[in-house]
Every structure is written in structure tokens, then in C-alpha cells.
């Protein structure tokens, strides 16, 4: 063995340091604004007391129990709406992304812009606009009444459907764009190759396009499901009391009732449930075996 020179070893050490240096800003940020507050949240959730008397740490798990006793319907609503918005979003976004990626060579940028432009309008304003669209005297309602899908006294605003519509709309860009990106990356020659190898257009879609767009589907559905499960604005503006979601409970506990331990416990539980579901989902759908 020959001895290595000092210079080579120093260069080597420097090279090994580079990835850590690159990650440092992100890691520091995450630690200060994610890990620390998270830790604080867990501590708070185990406290007892009130705003006047102050909170003390007692290691009390009662706040957690309340999630499953008192707030089970809200938890169900959150998951149901998030799931519904994701499924409908996928059904709307996939054909949309597909059309933009494969059938609009000249207008691609315009269509992408149209998808992104609504995001420039504040979330609250966009959702408020849906109150107008779905209003009792609005066009949508009168059209649905004309074709008989809605009874004479029926309405859309302040229903679960309105919440679902709002959620789908608000997260549509986040599901469409990742799918578009994964579809756009597919070389057209791959589909020609599939056709050349006796695959009909439908088989080529199932065996080539769909598997290759799976990464986009996974990130798109996650980007919809996760924020939708924690959303409270859509129910607030478009729904009614019966459809309250976990987000509304957390919001009122933190800002209205000022019960920090309960709010913290609910937040933490909701997060744990979502993380668990995401892990199961990515494991099942994201493995390569399922892509073949």
C-alpha cells in the first residue's frame, strides 16, 4: 500500500463535508420551525389548566382520549372529504394533465398558466367566489334544477357537496401539475414502441403511460390529501355545521375556546393518522413491483 498524500486526504475530507453543508440551511430551518414546535405541541398536549390559571405539565393523556370520544364525527368528515377530494381531483386532473402533455403542443404554456393563475388569487377569495357560483339563485343551481338533478327546494351552498367541490377546486393545481410533469417526461417513442410491439392504444396506456406517470399520481394525491385533511376554510365558507372537520375543531380550540392542550392533542393525533395513512399508501402504491 502506498501512503496517500496529505493534500489528497484533505480534498477527500472536504468532499465528504459538502453534502452536509448543502443540507445545513434546510436542516436548521426544519429544526427551528418544525421539530421544536412539534416538541412544544406534544408538551402542551400533556398539560392541564386554563388560560386564567395557566397550564401545567401533568402528563395527562385525557386530551387524546377526547379525540376518539368527542370528535369522531369530525375526524370521519376530515378523512372522508380529503379522500373524496383526492379521488375526484384525480379523475379530473389526470385527463386534463394528459391532454396538456400529449395533445396541445402549441398551447401547452397557456394551459399550464391557466391552471396556475387561480393560485395567484388568495385562497380565501377563491373559496368565497364559490359561494357566488353555488348560490341559491346562481346558474349552477338553476341548471341542476332544470335538468332535475336538484329538487325545487334543493340547494348546493351549505352542503357537503359544496365543501367537496371547493376542496377539489382549491387543490386541483397541486394534483394536476405533478401528473403533468411525469406525463410530459414520457418519450413519445415509448408509446410508438408499445404500438410496434402489438399493444393497442389502451394496452399501451395501461402498460406504459400509467406506470410511468405513477410518481406524479403519488405526489399529486399526497399534495391534495394531506392539506385537504387539515382544511377548515372550505367547510367554514361553503358547508354547514354537520360537516365540521378536524381543522375546524383545532381552529376553534386554539383561537376561540383557547383550550391549548386539547387543540395540541387533536393536531398531533390528526398528524399521526395522516402520516400513518401516507406511509401505508406510499408503501402499497409506490413499490416497483406494482408498477410492472
Amino acid at each position: 500500500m502506498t501512503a496517500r498524500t496529505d493534500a489528497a486526504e484533505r480534498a477527500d475530507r472536504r468532499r465528504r463535508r459538502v453534502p452536509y453543508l448543502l443540507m445545513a440551511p434546510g436542516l436548521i430551518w426544519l429544526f427551528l420551525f418544525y421539530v421544536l414546535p412539534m416538541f412544544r405541541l406534544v408538551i402542551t398536549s400533556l398539560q392541564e389548566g386554563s388560560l386564567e390559571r395557566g397550564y401545567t405539565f401533568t402528563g395527562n393523556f385525557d386530551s387524546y382520549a377526547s379525540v376518539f370520544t368527542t370528535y369522531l364525527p369530525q375526524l370521519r368528515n376530515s378523512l372522508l372529504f380529503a379522500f373524496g377530494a383526492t379521488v375526484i381531483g384525480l379523475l379530473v386532473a389526470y385527463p386534463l394533465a394528459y391532454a396538456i402533455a400529449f395533445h396541445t403542443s402549441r398551447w401547452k404554456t397557456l394551459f399550464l398558466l391557466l391552471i396556475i393563475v387561480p393560485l395567484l388569487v388568495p385562497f380565501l377569495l377563491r373559496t368565497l367566489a364559490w359561494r357566488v357560483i353555488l348560490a341559491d339563485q346562481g346558474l349552477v343551481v338553476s341548471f341542476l334544477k332544470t335538468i332535475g338533478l336538484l329538487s325545487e327546494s334543493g340547494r348546493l351552498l351549505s352542503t357537503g357537496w359544496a365543501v367537496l367541490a371547493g376542496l377539489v377546486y382549491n387543490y386541483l393545481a397541486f394534483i394536476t401539475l405533478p401528473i403533468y410533469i411525469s406525463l410530459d417526461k414520457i418519450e413519445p417513442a415509448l408509446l410508438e414502441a408499445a404500438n410496434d410491439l402489438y399493444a393497442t392504444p389502451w394496452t399501451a396506456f395501461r402498460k406504459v403511460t400509467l406506470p410511468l406517470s405513477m410518481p406524479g399520481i403519488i405526489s399529486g394525491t399526497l399534495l391534495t390529501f394531506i392539506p385537504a385533511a387539515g382544511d377548515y376554510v372550505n367547510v367554514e365558507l361553503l358547508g354547514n355545521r354537520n360537516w365540521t372537520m378536524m381543522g375546524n375543531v383545532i381552529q376553534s380550540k386554539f383561537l376561540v375556546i383557547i383550550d391549548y392542550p386539547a387543540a395540541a392533542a387533536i393536531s398531533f393525533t390528526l398528524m399521526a393518522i395522516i402520516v400513518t395513512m401516507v406511509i401505508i399508501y406510499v408503501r402499497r402504491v409506490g413499490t416497483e413491483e406494482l408498477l410492472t
Partner: protein
Amino acid sequence: MTTGPNSAAGETTPAVELVGLTKTFGDIVAVDGLTLDIAENLFFAIIGPSGCGKTTTLRMIGGFEEPTAGTIKLHGRDVTGTKPYQRPVNTVFQSYALFPHLTIFENVAFGLRRQGVDKTDVDRRVGDMLDLVHLAQTAKRKPRQLSGGQRQRVALARALVNHPRLLLLDEPLGALDLKLRKEMQLELKRIQQEVGITFIHVTHDQEEAMTMADAIAVMRNGRIERMGEPVEIYDDPRTRFVAGFLGASNLMDGTVTGTDEVTLTGGHTFHVGPDKLARANGAVHVGVRPEKIHLTPSGADPGHANSMAGVVTDSSFIGVSTHYLVQTETAGELTVVVQNLGATRFAPRDSVTLSWDPEHTFVVAE
């Protein structure tokens, strides 16, 4: 041996018959009334500069492009207007187009599975095919884990495993480096002879086409300008374009002055094989390939019927041969390639005599 491309209309049905095949993209005519028969089991190359319509022709045979007019028959059956998956043809794509999400085995098995071949047959045929292209050990890997040359062979295996009667190759070696390309040229030729099917090979590389093909069609502006066996069209290119595209040529302006004579504008007279003058009259270009010219020291016996004097202006040694530029009085500067057999080498400013056989003199129209 089957018949050549020009005389295929006889006993056997050609593998491919194109009649008046035309493709236009807007105002651009990519393929212009192409009529062509390709005999079975032939290694047929279509060459030409980019934009000459060679790839469009191939894509129409494969079914990826609808012809604007004309018909395509494969083994006697009219397939015009049918989809690629309905044609008994497979393609090796320029970019290989391997499915990145599938293993090498599944890539090769793709066509068989679509045809509903049963599982044990799929295993056997894919295994055999991977052996043929020396890739059995990579069956479980993904395309991105393979080198360019290996991917190229997977693309070939994926097409051949379906036992097509016709294989289309679209610049299949374009992405490989020179050494690998030379190896794959021989490999492709070996496989073609082993499986015994018709190959149609599109390339812009004339050397590659001449190495592999039994017959070559040179395309220009959507039409076939010259077609025949490599030796035949190399020795008698007939048009200035083919002479320039297929190898290097020395072309000199002249006029036909007899049944076997052409006189250069500068006054020199050359003998030309009468067969090559049969179609020509008036103003023509006389051509001779650089390697057909012999150089002898000025004053020595030139040894060939056509000769002229010149002065060496440049010489470059490239191993197997030496390339000379020789300035002549009546024909401008000519390129001469001399094999390095240990004979005299010439230096710039040496006076020399250039000479060549009338047999190696060809005549091209404007």
C-alpha cells in the same frame, strides 16, 4: 440467394412493395411518389442526408405515419392505413425506446405477452433471444443500468423475439461511439444472416450502409436517386449527388467526345468504359475515386491508360494509408489515397504523375 431489388418482381413476392408513396407535412413534401420493391431476406439500407425522407419512409412502413398517397404492401398484403400493432413488422428505434420501468426480460417479453404467447414459451423465447445478443446475465436489470451498446442489443432482441418477417432499423447505431458502432455493424449483419429475415436499415452513414447492406437506396428530396448493390453504386454513382454522398470523389468538368472518351474543359482527354458513357452526352463530370489513382514519380511509366501530371501540395499520413492533395494543370486539386505498402512516399512540392484505369473512371450528369 434472392434476387436483387431491381428484379424482384419475378417469381417471389417481395417483402415490401411501395407504390407511389407520398407524404407531405404542410407545404413540405417529405416523400415524393416513392415506388420500390424490396426482396425478401435482404439487408436493405436507405441512406441520405437529413431531411431526405428516409426516416419518414421507414415510419410509413412501420405504420407510425399515414401516407398522404400511395400504397404499402408487406409480403403481398396491402397494409396501408392499418395501425402499427396490426402489422407483422417490428422496429428498432433510434433512441432504443426501452421501457424504463420494466426489466430487460420484461422489455423483451413485451411483444410476446401482448400476443398472448403462453408463459413457458415466453420464458424460453426471451431466454434464447437474450443469449443470441449475449445479454442473458442482464435479464433482471433495468435499462438505465445498461451501457449504450447493451441497450442497443436489448432493443434488437425486443424486436426480433417476435419473429417478424421484416425488421425496421432507424439509425440504430447513431448513439454509439465509433469502436462500438463498428462492432455492432458486424453483429447486426451476423444476426440478420442467422435469423434470415428482411432488414430495412435507415442511416445517414454511408460507410455503415456499405458495410452491412446487400442493397442500398440513396434518397434525396423525397426520391430515390440511385439504388443497387454497394459496389455497383460506389463504382458508378451516376449523379453528382450520389458520387459526393457515397465516399469521396474527384470530379472534373468535361464534354463527351467519343464512344469511350471525355475531354476536360482544360483540354485533357480521358478514356472511360463505354458502358458508363451509354447514357451520357454533352457536358458531363468525369469522376475517379481517390483510392483508384496511382501516384508515380514524374517521368516514370504511369502504368494506366488515363494519366496526368501534378504537384503534391499536401500529404497526411493516417496509418493504413496516406492522403495526398495533388495540384494538376487541367483538373484543379485532386485527392489521392495511397495504401502504405512500403512504396515511395511523396512530399509536398514533389512532381508526380497520376494515373488510373478507364474502368475506374465514371461519368455523372449534373
